[in-house]
């Protein structure tokens, strides 16, 4: 285990869903409550995260690095970075949100949830179902009742894709 230390800084390997490895400073992953506990309790040097796609992991690591560099003077820059961070296709945003929730990165989680809420707020019922791949389990009678009583809920933005 001595090999996991280079100089003063501890190094940790994260393994994404497609077996891709990411080597980073241990201090960075401490922003994740989940990883922090693993590192502290069990002194691991490599953590497999099979349920997180490498693409998602790349994004999250990018955030962790930026966030670690956050100082009062580059606050604006960080805000812009955050905005750009969630400016991805909706499916990717959902993947990131789920992963961030799993990793328990609290500040980022709140930001991601708000971004998801902003994306679905103008969508119609149908579009929301498509986004989350949900089949309606209401009876056809209930369904037609909703449509009759509240037609405007089914209007709205029908586009279920990216923006």
């Amino acid at each position, binding site marked *: 285990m001595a090999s996991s230390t280079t100089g003063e800084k501890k190094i940790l*390997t994260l393994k994404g869903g497609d077996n891709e490895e990411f080597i980073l400073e241990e201090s960075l992953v401490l922003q994740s409550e*989940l990883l922090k506990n693993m590192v502290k309790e069990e002194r691991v040097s*490599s953590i497999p995260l099979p349920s997180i796609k490498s693409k998602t992991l790349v994004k999250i690591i990018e955030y962790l690095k930026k966030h670690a560099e956050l100082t009062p003077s580059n606050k604006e820059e960080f805000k812009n970075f955050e905005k750009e961070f969630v400016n991805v296709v909706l499916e990717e945003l959902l993947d990131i949100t789920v992963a961030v*929730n799993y990793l328990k990165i609290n500040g980022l989680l709140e930001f991601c949830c708000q971004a998801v809420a902003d994306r679905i707020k103008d969508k119609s019922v149908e579009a*929301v179902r498509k986004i989350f791949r949900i089949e309606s389990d209401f009876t056809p009678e209930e369904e037609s009742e909703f449509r009759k009583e509240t037609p405007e809920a089914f209007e709205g933005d029908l586009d279920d894709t990216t923006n």
Partner: protein
Amino acid sequence: MLTNKGKKRSTKTKKNSSKKVVSFASVEGNNDLLTTILLLLSPKPLFRCKLVCKRWQSLISDPKFASFWRLKTPSLGGLFVNRFWRKDNTSFKYFYISFTDNGLIHSLKGLQNPYGEGVVILNSCGGLLLCRTMKKERTINPICKYYVSNPTTNQFIALPEITYYILTQHRYGDAADFLHMTLAFDYSVSSHFKVIHVCSDRRPRAENFEIGIYSSETNLWKHLTCQISNSAVSRVDFNNGVFVNRAIFWPAYKSETSIYFDLDTESLHPYPMPSKRREAMYFGSLKDRLYYIRSKKGSRLDVFELEKDYSSWCCKYKIYEFPEMNFSQINFLTLISGDENRYLVICTQPAGMVLSINLDDSSYTNLCKLLLRPSDIKELSETCGSAVHYLSENPFWIGSRLDI
């Protein structure tokens, strides 16, 4: 760097710890995460999400969710202002001033009305409106119908007719004159609403009251007789009841006391009024407290709050006239909240400017300008605030279909 052996070992350790973590697949599959996102939605989108599937519906319908959502989501809603009135008592139109849209005025062609007849808003509570319609052709003894509507979700539920004996005693009167209805709804307590009506006995020092309680849970009226001995009862204004803290409070004019109806014990009790002389310019509730506003010499408004034990009132805010706002000619005023702040919304003559004043720091915002006609102004001054109804948006309540 890591040796193969080391790698294997650490993977094993991870396997042990991963037992603690439930696997996840999507946002949709994770109730906590989904709830966190849904809590961030404003009323209308949230209502749409309720129609997505049964699981989402039950997540959003949970009263706990509702109370969290209220804390997180400032929803200022809007104000219904009675626009005009015809002598036949059946045609009302309303302005809707939306605070959510920064004072945008919607001219309502008519409130959603299941009966296609003239409709009047009697009461607003927790995002629901209690409305009454009257059939025009029978002007001598018109038939009143009552329904509760949720303008945010466009739903309504019709109240069953009141058929019990007291109506026969008043057979020749106008039902609207003696049936006084108040809506009671608090989603953080129950997803069902109640409507309370009182049949007032016009004899002075009357002691018996016929009270009807409708519950949307049973869809039935329940009747009871309550007794109270109080010299003030003949001065109680049963038309302007306010639901707050599981009780209905009625104002009384030119009287030191009035009465309230406790919904838990189903009994009437006396409570004090702040002033014997002046009539209230506003009598209503905000954040579980009862408020009463009166004008002081036409240049100051005193906002009174009823103490939690209902024993007395305290003057909570004093608002002084300022150049943009002349307090001697007020069309209407009302209190609203929605975020952490409390606001006084006030409309004055002759310009019809509507301002919102933050009660805590006295800052104000111009909301809009209402084009009121002389008849509107006359009506507003005579109805003493009951022609204005504040509605907070409520995405939760879902009614059943209407049987006409």
